[in-house]
């Protein structure tokens, strides 16, 4: 460790000029990073973790400014440096990896060319040798067949591959500091593992420093030397990864730790200590589930999609003659399973495994290719999706969507959104009666009644999730499909929402089909788990059995990829790089 830190942030305060006055996003943050050190900044949304890194790069948007404090990068004062100097600094000395790799890449330029651009921009290679150099860099980030992939466009690569290209771009000029802003959010766990291992390995080999910005305490603790926890613009705790995990000092850190789903913790354990007993099972009157007969039986369900060529919408619009014979892609390949009354079943798998297609078919939003979907003794698979919307059966199967923002009409108030199914499919008539039902539902999901007249953009993520849940239970359905209902939420909100879902299930006697990629979350809520891969079921069984004694290799890989630092016995995992993506 050298005496002069690589990056020294002193008393940093960042303000944003808004219509409601000045908002301070980051308050008096102190942070130093030594050469070769990896630091994790952890916090929930709005904690100021990204803004801090933007201030370091001086890429705050127009409304934001550094109000106080100093940011020293080696001996350069970032606040005082000219824009030309900053341009040199960015990319060459400090580079950044963004959350969405596809958005960070130019969609109409070959990835190899994009790497060349960076090299040429910062004069790191002569024009004659730049192609070779770009291929070499692609090879370094372990892209197989780099010479071929040099000519690939971003849309031809998977999410994990794109993130590798972004890493290649960030590391092309051998910077001294890498800022990774949620680099693996949106990637599958196994891909996340390979990407994180790649980042750690490359930065360590080059003696680089890394700032990892993430909401996932487990991820930060697994890969960082030091962890900084931020809340509402303040740094609440700075400690080594081991200390954060074994002896968190600040109550906010403890709250985050508690809320993170992990093996050995029950659903109630996730709630903050002071709230846990009040809302726990004691107050919930269990709905009597008389029989555990199968409610939903899916047999040999098959969904095939024609494999389309490039340029879907446009070519469809312009098409004149018959299209070339389409090849068939099997999204769901003959799966069978059952969900009993009052049971919750988890459907787990990585992106593209067919879990969402399966749930959408069961939901009767798309038509199956083959197989049967028996719901309470009736084959609903035979009813075309278009007609199903108006049938009385519709009210018995409902869904909670993945993205609470996307699933609420921005032009409808919360009350209007909840009232929608009541208006269409129930016998309740008259605005007063509907309003009363909405308020009752709001109460049930813990949404303050005065928020019912707000529009989605005036609600927080957790509140929007509650609106979505209220809408789903409005018709007292028998089966609810939960499509990653907490994926877009902060962990502490996730903890509350998961508990709410559990309480509702018990009090209303519903069955859940819980679709998720997160085994830890599934474990909390589900009685049984189905693991899917490439359209097929690879493993099925009681949750505890599947998660603690998995039979299929794929399940074991999934479990191993979950970042969870085990500090006592040193992790006996010799960097087994699973073939990601």
């Amino acid at each position, binding site marked *: 460790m050298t005496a002069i830190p690589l990056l020294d942030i002193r008393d940093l305060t960042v303000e944003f000029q808004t*219509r409601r006055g000045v908002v301070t996003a980051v308050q008096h943050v102190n942070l130093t990073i030594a050469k070769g050190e990896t630091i994790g900044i952890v916090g929930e949304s709005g904690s100021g973790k990204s803004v801090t890194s933007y201030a370091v790069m001086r890429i705050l948007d127009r409304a934001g400014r550094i109000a106080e404090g100093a940011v020293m990068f080696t001996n350069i004062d970032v606040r005082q440096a000219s824009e030309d100097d900053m341009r040199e600094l960015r990319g060459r000395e400090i580079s950044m990896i963004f959350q969405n790799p596809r958005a960070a890449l130019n969609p109409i330029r070959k990835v190899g060319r994009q790497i060349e651009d960076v090299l040429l921009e910062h004069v790191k290679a002569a024009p004659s040798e730049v192609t070779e150099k770009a291929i070499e860099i692609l090879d370094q980030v372990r892209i197989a067949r780099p010479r071929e992939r040099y000519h690939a466009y971003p849309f031809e690569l998977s999410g994990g591959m794109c993130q590798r290209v972004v890493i290649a771009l960030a590391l092309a000029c051998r910077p001294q500091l890498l800022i990774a802003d949620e680099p693996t959010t949106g990637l599958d766990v196994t891909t996340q593992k390979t990407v994180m291992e790649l980042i750690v390995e490359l930065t360590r080999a080059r003696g680089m420093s890394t700032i990892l910005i993430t909401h996932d305490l487990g991820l930060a603790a697994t890969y960082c030397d030091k962890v900084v926890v931020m809340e509402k613009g303040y740094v609440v705790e700075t400690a080594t990864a081991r200390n954060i995990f074994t002896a968190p000092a600040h109550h906010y850190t403890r709250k985050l730790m508690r809320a993170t789903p992990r093996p050995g913790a029950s659903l109630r354990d996730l709630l903050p200590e002071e709230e846990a007993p009040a809302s726990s099972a004691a107050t919930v009157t269990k709905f009597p589930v008389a029989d555990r007969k199968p409610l939903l039986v899916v047999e040999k369900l098959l969904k095939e999609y024609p494999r389309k060529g490039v340029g879907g919408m446009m070519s469809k619009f312009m098409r004149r003659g018959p299209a070339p014979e389409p090849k068939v892609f099997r999204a769901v390949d003959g799966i069978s399973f059952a969900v009993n009354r009052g049971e919750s079943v988890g459907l787990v798998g990585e992106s593209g495994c067919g879990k969402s297609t399966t749930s959408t078919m069961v939901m009767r939003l798309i038509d199956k290719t083959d197989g049967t979907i028996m719901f309470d003794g009736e084959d609903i698979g035979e009813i075309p999706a278009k007609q199903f919307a*108006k049938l009385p059966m519709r*009210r018995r199967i409902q*869904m909670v969507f*993945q993205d609470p923002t996307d699933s609420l*009409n921005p032009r409808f108030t919360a009350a209007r*959104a909840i009232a929608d199914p009541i208006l269409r499919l129930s016998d309740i008539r008259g605005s007063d009666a509907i309003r009363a039902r909405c308020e009752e539902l709001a109460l049930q999901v813990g949404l303050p009644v005065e928020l019912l007249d707000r529009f989605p953009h*005036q609600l927080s993520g957790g509140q929007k999730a509650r609106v979505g849940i209220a*809408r789903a239970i409005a018709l007292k359905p028998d089966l609810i499909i939960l499509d990653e209902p907490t994926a877009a939420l902060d962990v502490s909100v996730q903890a509350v929402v998961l508990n709410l879902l559990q309480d509702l299930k018990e009090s209303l006697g519903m069955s859940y089909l819980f679709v998720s990629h997160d085994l830890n979350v599934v474990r909390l809520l589900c009685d049984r788990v189905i693991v899917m891969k490439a359209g097929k079921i690879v493993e099925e069984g009681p949750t505890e059995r599947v998660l603690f004694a998995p039979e299929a290799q794929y399940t074991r890989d999934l479990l191993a990829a979950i970042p969870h630092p085990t500090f006592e016995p040193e992790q006996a995992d010799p960097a087994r790089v699973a073939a990601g993506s």
Partner: protein
Amino acid sequence: MTDLAAASRPSSGLAALLRHSRYVIAENRVTGFAFGLFLLIVLAAVFGPYIVPHDPLASDTAAALKPPSMKHWFGTDQIGRDVFSRVVVATRLDFFIAVASVALVFLMGGLAGVAAGFFGGWTDRIVGRIADTIMAFPLFVLAMGIVAALGNTVQNIILATAIVNFPLYARVARAEANVRREAGFVQAARLSGNGEFRIVLAQVLPNIMPIMIVQMSLTMGYAILNAAGLSFIGLGVRPPTAEWGIMVAEGAAFMVSGEWWIAFFPGLALMIAVFCFNLLGDGLRDIVDPQRRT
């Protein structure tokens, strides 16, 4: 904080919109100016005939071709009609043609476009081909053809202007509806038991209204120009009705002999109206869609 408290009150939608509009107008002087002009145009359209100093149709050959004076602010034309009165009174007709044609094209183009974007397939192809066919003609020539074929009445001018604008509306609406086709709230509406047509009208359409309103304001200016243009070449409103296009056409002959005011003032009114609607479109976009602000 008081703002936040206010926002949580029931029926705060309108109040919030007014507050937001006030903010945008105060923030952007040009928008405020455009709104002022718009108000002026609306007032002239509504009250014009009651407030003008002279009868717009009364000729007075003794006072023909008089330059602007205290008695006749904008001068008089070749048969002694007061140009100022005619310009003000003409506002109602031109404004009406513009509003009616824009409303009509919104109903035709907007709904066809939303349906095309949402349903795709055959609906999309048919609407797309209709739009392409209309765009294959020089638009003004097409409008001329429609009016010439159907007869030059106010209704036909409105219809021609609407048809000419159809592709613009259909395309914007189609693009906006298309991105919302698979949105979560559309799926959720299906689960709530909404039929496809109800989803289009009650769920998708309200979401693209902001962008359509901006589009309407921007095409208002074009609609006024189109109507005036048709009248200018003799295919629109018939003389002696006061209408800006006819007045410019009539006055054009007198430009060479030095009586500039006959064509100049109606031309100026036309320019201000078009200018106002274009500025208004930009301002409205700021109000209805804060993310797209420049």
